[in-house]
C-alpha cells in the first residue's frame, strides 16, 4: 500500500491506530481512582508526545541512517517556534502559514549550518553543531532580543499588527490559534461512566502531521537515497574511493531532519503560541539524542517510542512525591514502609532525571539498539522457548 511493503504498512497502520485512539489508550484509569495520576490522556501531554515524536523521527533520519551525531538539533526546533510565533503576530492566527514558515526557516538554517558542519565528521561534526546551536542560543538571549524578546520569550500581545485577522477579539483578549476557525485548544470531553476521555483538536492535528512525517520517514528509509545514507554510515571512505561525492546526500539528510525539527517547533508554537530561547539550549539537543537512542536509533518506530517514553516519565514520574509513596507502601509495617520510601524517593519526583540517566547508561551499555532491540530480544526468546519444546536440538551456525 502507498508504495510500502507489507511490514511497513502494518507498522504505519499500527501507529495510526495508536495515535488516533490515544485519548482512550492513555487514559486507562477512572478519573476518581488512585491510579488516575498515571493517566497521560490530557491534551497538553498528548500533544507533546506526538510533537517530540516528530522531532525524534527527524533526528533519526540524520543520526540513525548516516551516523552523524548532531548535538545542536534543538536550534532548529527553536527557530521553528520563533518563526511560527512571528507568523501569528504578523499574518494570521491560522496555523498553516505558521507551520509552513517554520519548516522553511529551519530548512534554510539547516542548509547553512549543515553545509559548514558536514565538512567534518565524527566528534568534530558533533562539536561544530554544538557550537552553532550554542551560538544561536546565546544570540537569541542577548543581541537578537528585538526578534526573540530575550529572556522573557516571544509572546503574542494585544497590539500585534495581524494583517489577516484581528489584533484582539471583541472582548479584548488575544485571539487563539486555529485551523480555518477550528480552535487548537478546543477539547471535546466524553464521559463514559467513571472515565473521562478528552479529544483535543490540536492533538489530532499534530497526530495527523506525525503520521505524515512517519510515512515520509518510512519512504526515506526504503528509498535508494536511504540506502546511500546507510552506506555512508557503514563506510564513507569506501564510498569516496568509488568516486562518489557523499556530501550532497548527507547534506540532504541534515536539511530534512532540520526541517522535521522546524516542523515540531512550529507545532509546539501552534499549540501554545510562545517561544523561548531555552528550547535551543544544548541540553534540549541532548534530550532528542536521548529519545532516539533510548527508543532505538536507526529503527523506524524507535524514536517515536523513545519520545513517548521520556515525555511520559518526565510528566508522570516527576509528579510522584513522598506522600504518594507513603500511600503506596502504606500497607507495609512502618519501619519497612519508611525504608522503602527512602530508597525509592531519590529516583522519582524531582529526581526522575537520575532514573533517566541510569536507564540511558544501561541502554547504551547493554542494549545499543534501544527499546526496539529489547523488544526483539524478548520476542526471539519467546519464540525460542516455544520452538524449544518441539525441536530441542540447537541450530548449527554455518561457517563464514
Amino acid at each position, binding site marked *: 500500500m502507498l508504495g510500502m511493503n507489507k511490514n511497513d504498512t502494518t507498522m504505519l497502520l499500527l501507529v495510526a491506530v495508536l495515535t488516533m485512539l490515544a485519548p482512550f489508550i492513555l487514559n486507562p484509569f477512572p478519573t476518581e481512582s488512585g491510579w488516575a495520576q498515571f493517566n497521560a490522556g490530557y491534551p497538553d501531554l498528548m500533544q507533546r508526545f506526538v510533537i517530540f515524536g516528530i522531532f525524534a523521527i527527524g533526528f533519526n533520519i540524520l543520526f540513525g541512517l548516516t551516523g552523524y551525531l548532531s548535538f545542536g538539533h534543538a536550534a532548529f526546533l527553536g527557530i521553528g517556534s520563533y518563526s511560527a510565533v512571528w507568523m501569528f503576530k504578523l499574518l494570521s492566527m491560522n496555523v498553516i502559514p505558521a507551520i509552513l514558515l517554520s519548516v522553511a526557516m529551519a530548512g534554510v538554517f539547516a542548509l547553512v549550518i549543515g553545509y559548514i558542519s558536514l565538512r567534518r565528521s565524527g*566528534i*568534530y561534526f558533533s*562539536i*561544530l553543531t*554544538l557550537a552553532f546551536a550554542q551560538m544561536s542560543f546565546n544570540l537569541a538571549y542577548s543581541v537578537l532580543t528585538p526578534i526573540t524578546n530575550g529572556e522573557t520569550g516571544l509572546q503574542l500581545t494585544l497590539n500585534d499588527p495581524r494583517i489577516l485577522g484581528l489584533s484582539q477579539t471583541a472582548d479584548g483578549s488575544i485571539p487563539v490559534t486555529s485551523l480555518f476557525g477550528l480552535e487548537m485548544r478546543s477539547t471535546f470531553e466524553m464521559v463514559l461512566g467513571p472515565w473521562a476521555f478528552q479529544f483535543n483538536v490540536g492533538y489530532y492535528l499534530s497526530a495527523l502531521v506525525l503520521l505524515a512525517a512517519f510515512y515520509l520517514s518510512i519512504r526515506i528509509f526504503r528509498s535508494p537515497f536511504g540506502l546511500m545514507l546507510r552506506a555512508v554510515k557503514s563506510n564513507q571512505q569506501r564510498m569516496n574511493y568509488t568516486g562518489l561525492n557523499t556530501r550532497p546526500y548527507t547534506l540532504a539528510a541534515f536539511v530534512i531532519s532540520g526541517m522535521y525539527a522546524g516542523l515540531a517547533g512550529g507545532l509546539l508554537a501552534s499549540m501554545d503560541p510562545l517561544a523561548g530561547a531555552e528550547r535551543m539550549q544544548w541540553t534540549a539537543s541532548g534530550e532528542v539524542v536521548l529519545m532516539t537512542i533510548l527508543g532505538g536509533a536507526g529503527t523506524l518506530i524507535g524514536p517515536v517510542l523513545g519520545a513517548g517514553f521520556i515525555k511520559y516519565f518526565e510528566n508522570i514520574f516527576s509528579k510522584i512525591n513522598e506522600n504518594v509513596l507513603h500511600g503506596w507502601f502504606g500497607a507495609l509495617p512502618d519501619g519497612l514502609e519508611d525504608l522503602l520510601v527512602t530508597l525509592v524517593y531519590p529516583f522519582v519526583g524531582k529526581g526522575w532525571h537520575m532514573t*533517566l540517566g541510569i536507564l*540511558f*547508561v544501561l541502554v*547504551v551499555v547493554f542494549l545499543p539498539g534501544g527499546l526496539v532491540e529489547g523488544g526483539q530480544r524478548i520476542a526471539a526468546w519467546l519464540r525460542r522457548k516455544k520452538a524449544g519444546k518441539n525441536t530441542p536440538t540447537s541450530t548449527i551456525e554455518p561457517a563464514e
Partner: protein
Amino acid sequence: MDAILLQILNGLDKGSAYALIALGLTLIFGTLGVVNFAHGALFMIGAFCAVTVQRILNISFETVDPTQTDFLGNALIVKTPYLEAWFGPETGGSIIDWAVPLAILFAIPVMVFVGFAMERGLIKHFYKRPHADQILVTFGLAIVLQEMIKFFYGANPIQTPAPEMLSGIVNVGAIIGMDIVYPVWRIVYFFFSLLVIGGIFSFLQFTTFGMVVRAGMADRETVGLLGINIDKRFTIMFGIAAAVAGLAGVMYTPINSPNYHMGMDFLVLSFVVVVVGGMGSLPGAVLAGFLLGILESFASMNEIKSLIPGIDQIIIYLVAIIILLVRPRGLMGRKGVMEE
C-alpha cells in the same frame, strides 16, 4: 592601556579554568582515546568537595547563652563549631576560614577514587566502541552524577567564600605604576592553575612513569608488547585527570558559588577549547584555554561590543568553527591525529 591589561587579567583567570578542564579532557583523550562528556561533572564534584569540607569544618554544637536574648526575649542559642571549641576561637576560626584551600587535600583522594571507579566500572568497556557511543554513555553518566549532587546538596548555589586574607582586592598595577585593581583570589587561581599545569607537565616529562605514559600515547600496542601493563597506567592517568578537573572545581568555588549544573555549563566550552588546541595535544589545550579566555574577555569590552554587537556571546564558538574548518587538527595538534 589600563583597560587592556585588565582584560588580559580577566582572561587569564577564566582561561585558567578552561585550561585546567581542557588539560584533563586531553589527558583522557590522549591516553585512553575516550571522549569524556562527564568531565564537566568531575569539575562539579570537585567544587562540591569544597562545599563538603566547609560543612564538615562547620559542624557545631548548640549551647544556650543566658546572657544574650534573641528578638523574642528568649535566651539565645549559640552555635559553636567543634573546631573552635577544641582549638580556641582564634585557631579554630582560621581553620574554618581556610576551608577552600584545605579542601584541596580532601579533593585529591576523592577525585582519584571517583576517576578510578568511573574508568574501571564503565568507561573501560567503551574503548572499542565508536566515539558516538562514548559520548552517549558519558553524557548519561554526567546526568546521573549531576542528579546525585542535586539530591544531596539541593539545586541552589552554595556560597563558599575564600579565606578572608585572600578575598579582598589588590592593586596589581602598582608595581608598574598603573592603577589596576583586581580580586586577590583570582590571581591566586591563576597561579594555582599554573602550578597544577606545571606539575602535570613535569610529571609526564621527568618521571619514568610519565615517560611510559607518553610512549603509550604515541603507540599503545608496542608499549603493551614490551611487557608493560599500559592499561593500569592509563587508569592511573584517568584518576589524575579527574583530580585535575576536581582541583579546578575546588578553587573555582569562591569565584562562582557552585551549583549542580556548573559542570554542564563548562563542559561545552572546554570541549571547544580542546578542539581548538588540537585533540590529544596537552600544550595545545593549555594554550587554547588561555587564548580563548583572553579573547572572550576582550570581546566583552564595551568598545568592541559596540562595534560588533553580541560578539562576546559567540566569539569562542566562532573561533572554534573557523579553526575546525581551516585547520582541523587544531593549533598544536600532531599531523595525522584525528584530522578527519
